[in-house]
C-alpha cells in the first residue's frame, strides 16, 4: 500500500508511537526469526515472547486495574496485531496469545477471579496461558463438546479430551470448557479455570501443523480433574455465552492479523516484481504480473478498511456479530489470495524455502479456519442479514 499522509482513521499521538514501536519490534525481533521458527516445527519462540513482555506487547490489551496496558479497545489491538503479523503471522499471534485467555475471564469472571488470574499476566515475566474448547469430535459445532464436568463435593470432576489447544503444555493457566449438563447443547457448557499442575491433566505430543508453528498445539486429557467451585467461571451453563462473546473481538483482531500478513506478502512481491527482469524488463512491466499486484493491493486496502471499521463499531458498543465475521472472512481470504499471488509472482523462488512467501501462504491458511471457519463466517453473516 502506498505511504499515506492521511491516515485511515485518525490516530492519537500515543497510537502513532505504539504503531512505530511495534513496527520496530516486528522488523528487528520477529521478521528475522520467522524461518527458523518454521523449520523448528514444534518449538515456540519463548524468548521472543519474553522480549515482547518487557515492552508490554503481551499484556497491552488487558485492563489497567489488573496491571495491563489498558488498551482494551479493538481498534488499538488491530493496529498492533497488523504490525506484529506483518513480521510473521505465527509469531505475531503467539506473542498476543494471552488475550485469548483473558477474554472469557473478562466476560464471565468475578472480581476476585480477574485479580487472581489476570494480574499475573502483566509485567515482564508473564506466564503462558491457553484456552481449551475444541475436541477431536467438536470443532465448528462447539456446543457438541463431550468433555464433562460432574458436580462433586466442593467442586467438579472433569473428564474428557481436548484437541488443537494452542500453548497446551507450555501454558501455566487454562480456561477449559466442559459440559455440566450433557443433556443440553450450548446451555450445558460451563467454563473452568485451572493450573497446569492440577492432578489428572496430561498432554499429548505436539501436533504437526501446516503453518503458524510458533504456536505449538497439543491434545489435553482430563482424568478426574478436580476443580473447586470457586474456579468455575461464571454460572453453570454460561460458558457458551462467554465463548461467543469473545468471538467478536477475536475475529476482528484476527482480521487485522490477516491484513498484516497480506501486506507483508504484497510488499515482498512488489519489491521482487520491480527488480526481477525477464524478457528484457522488470516483470512488473508485464501486465499479467502488474494486474495481479493491483488485485492484491485492492483487496488488502478493502480488508484493512473493513477491519478498522468493524473495530470502531465494536468499540462504540454496536452489535458487530455480522460485521466482525465479514471482516475476518474478507481479510483471511484476502491473506490467502495475496500470499498465493506472492508465491506466483516469485515463481520458482516463491516455491523455495529460501524466500518467506511460501511459509506465509501456509501460515495464513489458519486464519480461514481458526475462531470460526470461513464457512461459519458466512453462516454468521447470513444470520445477521
Amino acid at each position, binding site marked *: 500500500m502506498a505511504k499515506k499522509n492521511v491516515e485511515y482513521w485518525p490516530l492519537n*499521538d*500515543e497510537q*502513532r*508511537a*505504539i504503531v*512505530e*514501536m511495534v513496527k*520496530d*519490534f516486528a522488523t528487528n525481533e520477529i521478521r528475522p526469526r520467522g524461518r527458523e521458527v518454521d523449520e523448528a516445527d514444534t518449538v515456540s519462540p519463548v524468548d521472543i515472547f519474553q522480549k515482547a513482555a*518487557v*515492552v*508490554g*506487547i503481551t499484556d*497491552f490489551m488487558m485492563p489497567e486495574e489488573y496491571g495491563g*496496558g*489498558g*488498551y482494551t479497545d479493538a481498534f488499538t489491538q488491530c493496529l498492533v496485531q497488523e504490525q506484529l503479523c506483518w513480521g510473521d503471522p505465527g509469531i505475531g499471534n503467539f506473542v498476543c496469545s494471552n488475550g485469548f485467555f483473558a477474554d472469557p475471564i473478562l466476560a464471565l469472571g468475578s472480581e476476585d477471579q480477574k485479580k487472581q488470574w489476570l494480574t499475573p499476566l502483566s509485567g515482564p515475566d508473564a506466564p503462558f496461558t491457553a484456552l481449551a474448547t475444541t475436541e477431536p469430535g467438536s470443532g465448528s459445532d462447539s456446543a457438541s463438546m463431550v468433555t464433562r464436568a460432574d458436580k462433586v463435593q466442593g467442586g467438579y470432576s472433569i473428564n474428557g479430551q481436548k484437541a488443537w489447544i494452542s500453548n497446551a503444555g507450555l501454558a501455566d493457566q487454562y480456561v477449559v470448557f466442559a459440559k455440566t449438563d450433557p443433556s443440553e447443547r450450548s446451555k450445558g457448557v460451563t467454563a473452568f479455570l485451572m493450573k497446569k499442575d492440577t492432578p489428572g491433566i496430561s498432554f499429548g505430543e505436539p501436533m504437526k501443523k501446516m503453518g503458524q508453528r510458533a504456536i505449538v498445539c497439543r491434545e489435553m486429557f482430563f482424568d478426574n480433574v478436580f476443580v473447586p467451585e470457586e474456579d468455575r467461571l461464571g454460572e453453570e451453563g454460561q460458558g457458551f455465552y462467554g465463548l461467543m462473546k469473545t468471538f467478536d473481538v477475536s475475529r476482528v483482531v484476527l482480521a487485522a492479523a490477516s491484513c498484516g500478513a497480506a501486506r507483508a506478502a504484497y510488499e515482498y512481491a512488489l519489491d521482487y516484481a520491480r527488480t526481477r527482469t525477464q524478457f528484457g524488463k522488470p516483470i512488473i512491466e508485464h501486465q499479467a504480473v502488474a494486474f495481479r499486484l493491483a488485485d492484491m493491493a485492492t483487496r488488502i486496502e478493502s480488508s484493512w478498511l473493513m477491519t478498522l471499521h468493524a473495530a470502531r463499531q465494536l468499540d462504540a458498543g454496536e452489535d458487530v456479530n455480522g460485521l466482525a465475521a465479514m471482516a475476518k472472512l474478507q481479510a483471511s481470504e484476502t491473506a490467502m489470495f495475496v500470499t498465493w499471488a506472492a508465491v506466483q509472482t516469485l515463481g520458482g523462488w516463491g516455491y523455495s524455502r529460501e524466500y518467506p512467501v511460501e511459509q506465509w501462504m501456509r501460515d495464513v491458511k489458519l486464519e480461514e479456519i481458526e475462531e470460526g471457519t470461513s464457512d461459519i463466517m458466512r453462516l454468521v453473516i447470513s444470520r445477521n442479514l
Partner: protein
Amino acid sequence: MKIAVLVKQVPDTGEQRNLDPVQGSLDRSGENLLDEINERALEVGLKYKDANKGTEVVVISMGPDTLTKGLRKALSMGADYALHVCDASLAGADAGRTAEVLAAALRHTGADLVLAGNESTDGRGGVVPAMIAERLSLPLMSAVDTVEISGQEVIGERGTETGSVRLSAPFPVMVSVTERCGEARFPSFKGIITAKRKPLSVLGLAELGLADLGSLPSTGTAASSIVISTVRTPARTAGRIVVDEGNAGTELAAFLRSSRLI
C-alpha cells in the same frame, strides 16, 4: 547524577535521501526519526539510571517543531524530561552554530555527564560533540565503543586500527559513542503512556541568552555556514572490461595505476 543526552531527528535512512542543489541542504520533508546512534547513547544513560535510583536523564535537542515526536520517543524509552531548542532563525545551522546553541542549553540544564552519538546519519560531520566540549571546557571522550559509569568517573574503550584505547575521565565529561555501544531498548507501552505526562520544555534563543547570535547577511538566519557552490555527482559512465588473456593481472594493475588508484 544528572545525565544529558543529545539527540537529533534525521530523515529515515531506509528511504531515498536527497540534497537540495540550490541550498546545499538535505531535504527533510519526508519521515524524520530519532537518529539510531542517539537512541544507543540514550540507552547508555538509561542503563545507568536503571541500576542507580536518583539518576536524572534529560534529552536535549535543537530542531523544528516536528522534533516533538522524537523527543516523546526518548521520553517513552525512559528519559525524565526533554529540552527542545526551537527557533526559526536556526534553520540550516551548521555544526559550529549547533554546538554553540547546544552548549548554551547544557549550561542551562547542567549535567555531570553528556552523552551523544559520534556522528549523525544525515550530516555525518562528527564534530559537534568536540565543539560542545570545547565550549564548555569539558574533557571529551570521543567515539567510544563501551562506556562504564561509576560514581567518580567514566571509563570508555575506543577501537583503533591496531587495537583499542582505554580512556577515563572524571565528571563533568562529554562522551560520544559509536554504534558498537549496544542496542537501544524499545519504548514500552507503559513508557508511551507516561511519556505524555513528562515535561518537555521548548526554549527559544532569547531564553538561552543567545538573542544576539544575529543573522548572517547571506542566509538571513542565525545559521553560520554559507554555500558557495554546489556540484552534482557526475553521472556514471560505462566501465572498462579487462578480458583475461593470461595477462589480466598486469592489465588491471596498469589500469589502477593510470587511474591513480594505486
